[in-house]
């Protein structure tokens, strides 16, 4: 190989990666930098409209950490995230496996249904869900009452536990299709020979699944889990809409809605930025083990 072609090999990728890198720098580094700066300032509504901000050092962080409410919200967010990610992955895995057993036209029908659920814009879907769970005129209450339950005028969003149950249902419903499609694709790549060999060696259905199928789709599983964790940590629209439909805002805030209520609603952008930094750190901490596992796998 000549020196010339080696040089080409090293510089072409660089050229290809530069535009993307520049875009990333613009789209990520600027907002992030701005957020760090904001979190060190006392930045309120007056600053939003042009008054010079005042530097306050780490005061915003100190206020936040000293407020027990932040820790309540963090704990709530982490629990919500893990429960939702686990449910989504479990249900998604179940449906994906089921799909490998379906005849093709049933599978296509199932895929269409999932695709429609997935393609539905969040806000439109939220309106439908709100109608379903409406206290006075909701279909859910009507059906449960018809079955003999005492659900007339039952407020689904009033108590925090039931609020989060509804939120979980919606979030899981929206995320399952992605998991199903990805895992189904991975499952079709599992070599039949290996599964058959295991069967001949006497492995039962469950054993084949745990010891043969799961390890072969592990890389995909890890990526899906990682994405799901990140998405469920940042969940915002569903919670925000449900809070407006009912529910006690303070008892149902997750980090996303808490930051929004500090900043946009409360007009305290400095503290909101500090809380957002906190959320970033939390995301890194929660996802770090999975990223490490993924990196190890690539070695």
């Amino acid at each position, binding site marked *: 190989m000549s020196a010339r072609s080696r040089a080409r090999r090293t510089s072409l990728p660089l*050229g290809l990666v*530069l535009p993307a890198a520049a875009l990333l720098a613009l789209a990520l580094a600027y907002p992030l930098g701005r957020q760090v700066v904001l979190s060190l300032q006392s930045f309120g509504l*007056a600053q939003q409209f042009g008054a010079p901000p005042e530097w306050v050092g780490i005061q915003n962080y100190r206020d936040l950490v000293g407020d027990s409410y932040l820790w309540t919200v963090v704990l709530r967010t982490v629990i919500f995230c893990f429960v939702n990610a686990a449910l989504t992955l479990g249900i998604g895995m179940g449906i994906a496996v089921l799909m490998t057993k379906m005849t093709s036209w049933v599978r296509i029908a199932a895929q269409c249904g999932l695709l429609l659920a997935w393609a539905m814009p969040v806000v439109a879907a939220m309106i439908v869900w709100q109608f379903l769970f409406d206290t006075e005129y909701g279909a859910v209450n009507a059906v449960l009452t018809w079955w003999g339950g005492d659900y007339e*005028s039952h*407020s689904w969003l009033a108590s925090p536990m039931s609020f989060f149950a509804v939120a979980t249902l919606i979030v899981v419903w929206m995320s399952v299709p992605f998991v199903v499609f990805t895992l189904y694709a991975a499952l079709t790549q599992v070599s039949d020979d290996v599964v058959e060999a295991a069967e001949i060696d006497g492995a039962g259905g469950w054993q084949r699944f745990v010891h043969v199928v799961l390890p072969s789709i592990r890389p995909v599983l890890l990526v899906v889990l990682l994405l799901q964790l990140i998405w469920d940590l940042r969940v915002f629209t569903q919670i925000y809409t449900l809070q407006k439909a*009912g529910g006690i805002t*303070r008892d149902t805030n997750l980090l996303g809605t808490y930051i929004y209520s500090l900043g*946009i609603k409360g007009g305290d952008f400095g503290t909101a930025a500090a809380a957002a930094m906190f959320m970033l750190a939390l995301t890194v901490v929660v996802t770090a083990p999975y990223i490490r596992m993924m990196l190890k796998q690539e070695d």
Partner: protein
Amino acid sequence: MRINKTLAAAAVIALLGVTAACGSDDDGDEADGGPKTADLVVWLNGADTPQEARDWLKTTFEEENPGSTLTIEEQEWDGLVERLTTALSSEDQTPDVVEVGNTQAPTFTTAGAFSDLTGALPDLGGDDLLPGFVEGATIEGKTYAVPYYAGSTYVFYRKDLLKQANLEVPTTMEEFVDAAVALKKKSGEKDFSGYWLPGQDWRDGAAFLWNAGGDFAAQDGDEWSGTLSTPESLEGLDTYQKLFTEASGAPADANEEDPVTPFCAGNIGMMSRPGWVYGMLTDPKSGCPDLAKQVGVFALPGTDGQPAPVLLGGSDIAVSAKSPNQDLARKAVALMLSEDYQGILAQNGLTPAKESLTSLLGDDEFAQATIAAASNAKLTPAAANWAVVEGTRVLEDLFSQIAQGGDVEDLAADADERITEELQR
């Protein structure tokens, strides 16, 4: 290889260029007042402003200012503070003229979001403008917003239902509460409301708080703090809880946005709503004209038989400080305060922004109730950060939790803490 590098660099520059082009603005205005012609954007909130008024404003403005256009964009009241916070701070996105709730205005005036209208005040109506509204939008002698309309809620009731229950129109608070409870008892239905009071509706709940002598917050020197735990406030909140649990069939966690559906389902005996809701009830498409014929109205009575202190509702209009079309925006504001425009609002049950135009309301039952309700109406605390208290939904949380049967004393103490925290920031 060199070509590759150059290409890559060109690609980067192109990308940067595209983004830069997005951010550049293209207005080359000559004076401070902005260009002679422009496409003006006016934000109006909710269904309050009747269509007739909107059409009149658009046509008249475009006739008087050839070459310019005026577009009305309807915003939802819910979440308005958030939307204004983001939109008003951006020169590219800001609407030129905005309607803002009279209790929300101080937050934006103190932040410098609105243009100073002091100079234009005499032309817009001067002393004739509703004084409480002008005061609320004035800081350090400068006025940043003008009244748009006022309107306090009064009580709509079903004449037939009151008659069936052998009840007279209540003349004191005590009679009112008793009548509401009696109506509910008579019906026996779980979702029937003797008095319709959705749990998040603190704006109508406020009347019971104030009637008992309580308030949300009080000023001591420079500091504001929550006063929901005073004995008077607690008494008022107890009345609210009683009304909710014994007279209302509305959900504890719903807001007051849609009274039409339950009313037209025959599930409401009495409810506090602004006058323009009557138009929605009589509408053949969305309302129920037959039931609406049974509607009578009265101003909520206080303990002493005089009208109770209800929330002085209403709106201000203001010009966005970042709008490049200051002069044209002021012209639109002037049109919205003109007798023609205000007359249309008055016909629809909204109290005009000028005192001299009150007669436009007429003198039927509705006009009398409007005027009586306004006679003792009260504003939310005049603290600079009050809109933040509204924005963070402290009061929706409080009233909804009381409606769910929570301990009033504990909940009031918690809410006080949060209100104090927001107001002292």
